C-alpha cells in the first residue's frame, strides 16, 4: 500500500493554518458561548426594571382602593346604631354614584344576609364566603383574591369591611367590589420586546390579569415554579406558555404598601425565540468575521510557505536539467542562509559530473565501430534466405490446382441430394392427406404448448377455423368457448391421457387421447386424438336401460321364490326331511346370489342413468364400519380369517348416505375376505386427516396382477386370478363402490401386489364448519 504523500509545501501550509486558525476559532466560539447568556441577562435586567415599576403601580392601585374603602365606610353613619337602616342605604347609594370604581357595594347584616346592594350582581351566600367569615372572625378589613363574580372576563377584587359597635362586635358588614378595568390596563400597557407579556397570577397559579381576557382564570402552565417563586420573592424564570418557551422575571407582590397582600406573582416574560433571534443575528456576524479571517490566514500561510519552498524548487529544476544531460546549469540562490551554502556545494557537484560524462562519451564511440562491422555480416546471410522462399511458393501453387478439382466433385454430390429432398416432399404430402382425411380429429401441440396442426375433423368437433387457432398457446385457446372443455381436460401442461370421455354437447361426445410424440429420443410435442363416440354412448345407454328393465322384471319373481323357499325351510308349510332341506338350502343360496346379482345390475344401471340418488346426513362412519364388519364376521370366521378394526377414539361426523356408504364398505370388506386365503388377515382402519377421513381396507390376499390394475374399477372386470379362485362374482362391486365414494366427494384408490395382498383406500371430506 502506498501512503499519502504530502509535499513539503503542503506541510508548511498546514502547520501555519493550524497555529493561525485554531486560536481564532477558539476565541470565536468562546465569544459565541458567552453571548447568549450575556444577552439573556441583559434582557432579564430590563424586564426586572420594568417589573419593579409595574409592581409599584399595582400596589398603589390596591392600596388606594383600600384607603378609599376605609375612608368612606369607617364612618359613624355606618357604625352608629342610632342611624336608621334607610339612611345607611342612602349613604351607600350616594357613595356608589360618586365612585364608579366600586362596581357594587353590599350591606350585610352580622350573619351575612343581604340588607342592600347597589347592583345585586353577585352569586352565592355571603354567610359561607371565606373572606366574609375571615372579616367576621378577625374583625378587620379583608381583601379578597381577584376572582370572577359572574363574568370571567371581568375580574373583581372585593373588600370585606366589618362595622363594629362600641363593644368591638360586628353589627354590619360592607362588601365592596372593585372595578378592575384600570388595574388590567396597568398590565396591558406593559410592552416588552415585540411579543413580551405581563402576567399576574395568584398563589394557586390562576392567571388573574393578562392582556388576553380569554385567558383570565386559566392556569399558568405547570412548569412555572409556583412555590419556589414565593420562596425566592423575585428572580428569573423559564416556563411554557401556550406551547411557547418564555423567559422572564417574576416578582412576588406581598404587601400593598402597609396592607397585607396575597402573594401575587407578577411575571414579565418574553418568548425565548425572540431573545434567541437577536443572538442569532449577532452570531451570524461573528461567523462571517471568522470566515473572512480564516481566508486571510490561509492566504498568508500560502505566501509564507512559498518563500520557504522557492529555493527548493530551483534545486529541483536544476536536478531535472542535469538528469536531461545539461551540465552547464548553475543554481543561483542569494538568501544568505543554509540554502545558499547548499547551492554552492550543488554547483561544485555538477562540475564533477561533467568531467565524468566526457570520459563516458569516448568509450561509446569505440563501441559503435564494432557494431557496424557485425551488421555487414548479417546482410549477406539475409540474401541466401530469399532464394529459399521462391522455391516454396512454386510448390504451393500446385496444391491449389488439386483443391480446385475436388470442388467440382462436391457440386455433383449436392445435385443428388436435391433429388432425394423432392422425394421426401412427396412423402410429406401423402402424410398430410392422411391427416386431413382422417376420421378422428387430430391436434398437434408443439414442445412449447402451441397448436401447430389441426385437421378438418377436429375443426368440425371444436367449431373453429384452423387459421384462427394455429400457433395459439393453450392459455389463449382456453378463451375460445368451444375449446374450453378440451383444454380443461388436457390441463395446463399436457399429460398423456388415454381415452377420456369429453361431452362437448348433447349430440357430441368425444373420447380424447393425448399421446407424446417422440422421435429419436426427442420429444416433439403432443398429439391429441378426438374420437367421436356419440353413437357408442347412445347404444350403451339403450343397453343400460334394457338391463335396468330386465333386472326389475327379474327381481320380483326372484323375491317371490326367496320367500317361498324361506317359508318351506322354516317349516311353516310342514315338516321337511333333511335331504329335502339340503337341496332347498342350495336353491335358496343360489336364489340369493341371483338377487344380489340383479341388485348389482340395478345399481349399475341406476348409476349410469344418473338416478343413483344420495341422501347425505351427518353420520358417524365408525358405527357404519362396525355394523358392516359385524355382518361379515361369520363369513370371516368360517374362512378362519382375522378381521382387525382400528379407529381413533372420537371421529367427527361426515355427510353420507348411510345405506350407500354401507354398501361401498361392504363391497370392500367382502372382497377382502373373499380373496384372502384361510389364516389370512383383513385390516380395516379409519384415520382422521385435516380435512378428510381416510379409510382403508387391506388384506393379505391374492392381490391384483399388475397388468390388470388399471381396469379394476371398470364394469364387469374380474381379475384372472380372482376368477380362478372364486368362480362367482359379477365384477360390478368395485364399480359401484367407486361411484358411491365419488358421489360423496371422496376419492378411492388402491395398492396391490400379486400374491401379497391389496389395500383399498378411500377418503371422505369432513363437514366444514
Amino acid at each position, binding site marked *: 500500500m502506498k501512503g499519502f504523500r504530502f509535499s513539503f509545501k503542503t506541510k508548511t501550509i498546514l502547520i501555519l493554518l493550524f497555529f493561525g486558525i485554531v486560536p481564532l476559532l477558539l476565541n470565536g*466560539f468562546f465569544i459565541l458561548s458567552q453571548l447568549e447568556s450575556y444577552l439573556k441577562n441583559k434582557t432579564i435586567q430590563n424586564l426586572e426594571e420594568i417589573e419593579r415599576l409595574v409592581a409599584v403601580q399595582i400596589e398603589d392601585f390596591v392600596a388606594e382602593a383600600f384607603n378609599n374603602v376605609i375612608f368612606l365606610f369607617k364612618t359613624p353613619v355606618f357604625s352608629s346604631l342610632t342611624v336608621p*337602616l334607610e339612611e345607611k342605604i342612602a349613604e351607600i347609594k350616594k357613595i356608589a354614584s360618586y365612585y364608579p370604581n366600586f362596581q357594587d357595594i353590599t350591606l350585610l347584616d352580622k350573619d351575612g*344576609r343581604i340588607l342592600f346592594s347597589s347592583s*345585586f350582581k353577585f*352569586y*352565592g351566600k355571603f354567610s359561607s364566603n371565606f373572606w366574609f367569615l375571615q372579616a367576621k372572625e378577625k374583625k378587620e378589613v379583608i381583601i379578597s383574591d381577584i376572582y370572577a363574580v*359572574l363574568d370571567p372576563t371581568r375580574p373583581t377584587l372585593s373588600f370585606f369591611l366589618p362595622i363594629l359597635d362600641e363593644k368591638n362586635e360586628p353589627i354590619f358588614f360592607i362588601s365592596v367590589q372593585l372595578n378592575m378595568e384600570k388595574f388590567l390596563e396597568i398590565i396591558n400597557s406593559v410592552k416588552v420586546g415585540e411579543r413580551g407579556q405581563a402576567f399576574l397570577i395568584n398563589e394557586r397559579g390562576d392567571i388573574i390579569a393578562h392582556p388576553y381576557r380569554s385567558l383570565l382564570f386559566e392556569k399558568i402552565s405547570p*412548569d412555572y415554579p409556583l412555590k419556589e417563586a414565593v420562596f425566592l420573592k423575585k428572580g428569573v424564570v423559564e416556563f411554557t406558555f401556550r406551547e411557547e418557551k418564555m423567559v422572564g422575571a417574576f416578582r412576588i407582590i406581598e404587601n400593598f404598601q402597609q396592607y397585607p397582600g396575597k402573594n401575587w406573582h407578577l411575571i414579565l416574560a418574553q418568548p425565548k425565540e425572540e431573545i434567541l433571534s437577536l443572538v442569532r443575528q449577532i452570531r451570524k456576524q461573528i461567523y462571517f468575521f471568522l470566515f473572512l479571517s480564516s481566508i486571510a490566514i490561509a492566504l498568508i500561510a500560502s505566501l509564507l510557505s512559498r518563500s520557504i519552498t522557492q529555493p527548493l524548487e530551483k534545486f529541483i529544476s536544476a536536478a531535472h536539467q542535469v538528469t536531461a544531460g545539461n551540465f552547464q546549469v548553475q543554481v543561483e540562490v542569494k538568501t544568505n542562509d543554509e540554502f545558499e551554502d547548499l547551492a554552492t556545494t550543488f554547483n561544485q557537484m555538477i562540475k564533477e559530473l561533467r568531467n565524468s560524462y566526457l570520459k563516458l562519451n569516448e568509450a561509446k564511440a569505440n563501441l559503435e565501430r564494432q557494431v557496424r562491422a557485425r551488421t555487414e555480416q548479417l546482410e549477406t546471410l539475409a540474401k541466401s534466405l530469399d532464394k529459399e522462399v521462391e522455391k516454396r511458393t512454386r510448390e504451393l501453387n500446385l496444391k491449389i490446382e488439386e483443391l480446385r478439382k475436388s470442388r467440382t466433385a462436391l457440386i455433383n454430390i449436392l445435385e443428388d441430394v436435391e433429388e432425394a429432398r423432392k422425394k421426401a416432399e412427396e412423402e410429406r404430402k401423402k402424410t398430410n392427406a392422411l391427416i386431413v382425411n382422417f376420421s378422428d380429429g387430430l391436434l398437434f401441440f408443439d414442445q412449447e404448448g402451441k397448436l401447430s396442426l389441426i385437421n378438418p375433423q377436429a375443426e368440425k368437433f371444436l367449431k373453429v377455423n384452423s387459421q384462427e387457432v394455429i400457433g395459439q398457446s393453450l392459455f389463449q385457446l382456453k378463451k375460445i368457448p368451444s375449446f374450453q372443455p378440451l383444454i380443461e381436460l388436457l390441463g395446463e401442461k399436457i399429460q398423456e391421457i388415454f381415452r377420456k370421455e369429453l361431452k362437448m354437447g348433447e349430440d357430441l361426445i368425444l373420447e380424447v387421447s393425448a399421446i407424446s410424440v417422440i422421435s429419436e429420443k426427442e420429444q416433439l410435442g403432443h398429439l391429441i386424438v378426438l374420437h367421436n363416440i356419440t353413437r357408442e354412448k347412445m347404444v350403451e345407454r339403450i343397453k343400460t336401460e334394457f338391463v335396468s328393465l330386465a333386472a326389475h322384471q327379474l327381481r320380483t319373481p326372484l323375491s317371490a321364490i326367496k320367500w317361498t323357499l324361506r317359508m318351506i325351510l322354516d317349516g311353516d308349510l310342514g315338516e321337511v326331511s333333511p335331504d329335502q332341506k339340503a337341496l332347498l338350502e342350495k336353491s335358496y343360496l343360489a336364489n340369493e346370489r341371483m338377487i344380489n346379482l340383479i341388485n348389482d345390475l340395478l345399481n349399475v344401471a341406476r348409476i349410469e342413468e344418473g338416478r343413483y340418488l344420495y341422501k347425505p346426513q351427518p353420520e358417524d362412519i365408525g358405527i357404519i364400519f362396525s355394523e358392516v364388519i359385524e355382518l361379515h364376521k361369520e363369513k370371516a370366521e368360517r374362512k378362519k380369517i382375522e378381521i382387525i378394526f382400528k379407529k381413533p377414539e372420537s371421529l367427527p361426523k361426515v355427510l353420507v348416505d348411510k345405506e350407500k356408504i354401507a354398501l361401498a364398505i361392504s363391497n370392500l370388506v367382502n372382497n377382502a375376505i373373499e380373496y384372502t386365503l384361510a389364516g389370512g388377515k383383513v385390516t380395516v382402519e379409519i384415520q382422521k386427516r385435516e380435512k378428510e377421513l381416510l379409510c382403508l381396507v387391506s388384506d393379505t390376499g391374492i392381490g391384483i396382477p399388475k397388468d390388470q390394475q388399471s381396469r379394476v374399477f371398470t364394469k364387469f372386470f374380474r381379475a384372472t386370478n380372482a376368477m380362478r379362485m372364486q368362480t362367482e362374482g359379477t365384477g360390478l362391486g368395485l364399480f359401484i363402490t367407486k361411484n358411491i365414494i365419488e358421489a360423496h366427494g371422496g376419492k378411492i384408490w388402491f395398492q396391490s401386489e400379486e400374491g401379497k395382498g391389496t389395500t383399498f383406500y378411500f377418503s371422505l371430506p369432513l363437514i366444514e364448519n
Partner: protein
Amino acid sequence: MPKKILLIIPFILIILITTSFFFSPKKPLPPTPLKEEELNIFIWENYLSQKVVEEFEAKFGVKVNIDTFEDTDQMFAVLQSQPEKYDLIVAEDDLVVLMKNLKLLSPLDHSMIPNLIYLKEEAKQNQYDFGNVFCLPYVAGFTGIAINEKYVKDFDQTRKILWDENYKGRISMPNNLEEVLTNALFYLGYPINTPTKEQLAKAIELALQQKDLIIGYDDPITQRNLMINEEAWIAYIYSTEVFPIQKANPNVKFFALKEGVLLWADNWCIPKDAPHKHLAHQFLNYLLDPKVSAQNSEEIGALMVNEAAKNFISPEIKKSLEGLDFPREREILFKSQYFLASTDPTIREAINLLESELFSSAP
C-alpha cells in the same frame, strides 16, 4: 493516511468542545404523584349514603370528610373564595353552567371513570353539560307540593294553596330563593327563563306576599321534619325529600303542579383547585357501580341516574321512588323546565333583590 488523521483530530476536538457549549441538558423531571389519602366532599345533607362512604374508605384505605350545605348558594360562595377546599362538590344544573363559565371546574377524565357506561342516556346528553365534560349527573328531580291529607282536602294541584290565608302558618317554603322566585313566575304563568323586567317585578311582589303566610324559608331537612311532625301541612319541596317523609308519615302526599314544575338535576363536580383529583375520580367511579348506586338510592331515597342500578333496588322502594325524578303526568312534564337562566344578570339581580327584601326588615 495516518498522518492525515493526526492532523484532523485536533480540528474535530476543537469543534466538539466549542459546540458542546450550546447544548446543555436541562430537562425537568415530571412530579411523581403521591398517594392521595383524603377526600373532601361538599354536599347536601342526607344526600349520600354513609354506608357507601364507609365501604369506600375501607376499600381504598382513605379518609372521606363530608361537609354539608343547606343550599348551593352557600356551596358556591365557598368554591369562589376557597377553590382548593373541596375535592368533590354537588351542584345543580344551572350552577354547573355558571361554574363552568367562571372556570371553577376541572374537566372529568373519562378514562378514570369506566363505570360511566351505566349512566342514563338522558344524563349523558343533558343541556347543561353535554357529554359530561365537567360533571357527573347524580340525581334528577323536581320541586312540587307535599300536603298532609289529614288536614288538607280537595287539593287542586295548583300553586294557589301556597297563598291560601286558610293555611297561614302551616306552609313551608324552601330556603332557595331561585325556587321562591320561579315558583311565583310559574304561578303567574310567566316564562321562568326569559321573563321581562316587569314580569320579574310582579313575581317578586307576589313572592313577598307569601312571607307572612309561611312558617319560614327552610332548608330541606327542616322542611322534611316540619312535614313529618305535622307542624307544616303544605310544603313546596324537592321531590327527593318525599321518600323519607312518606316513610315516617304516610298521610303526606306529593304532587306535581298543573302550572308545570321546575326540573333540576344534581351533579358531582371536581373544583379546579381540588387537591385530590385522582381520588375524586375513583370515588365517582365507585359511586357509579350499579350495586353501590342501588344501595345509595335506597338509603337517600332518590333514584340516581344510573340505568343498571335499577335492577338492584328492592321492588317496594323502587315503586315508591318512581315518579320522583320526573312528573308522571305528560301535560305537566310538557310545561316543566330547567332553570338555566339563573345566572343571567337580570335574574340574578332579581333574586338578590328578593333576598334583601325578605331579610332586611328581619333584624
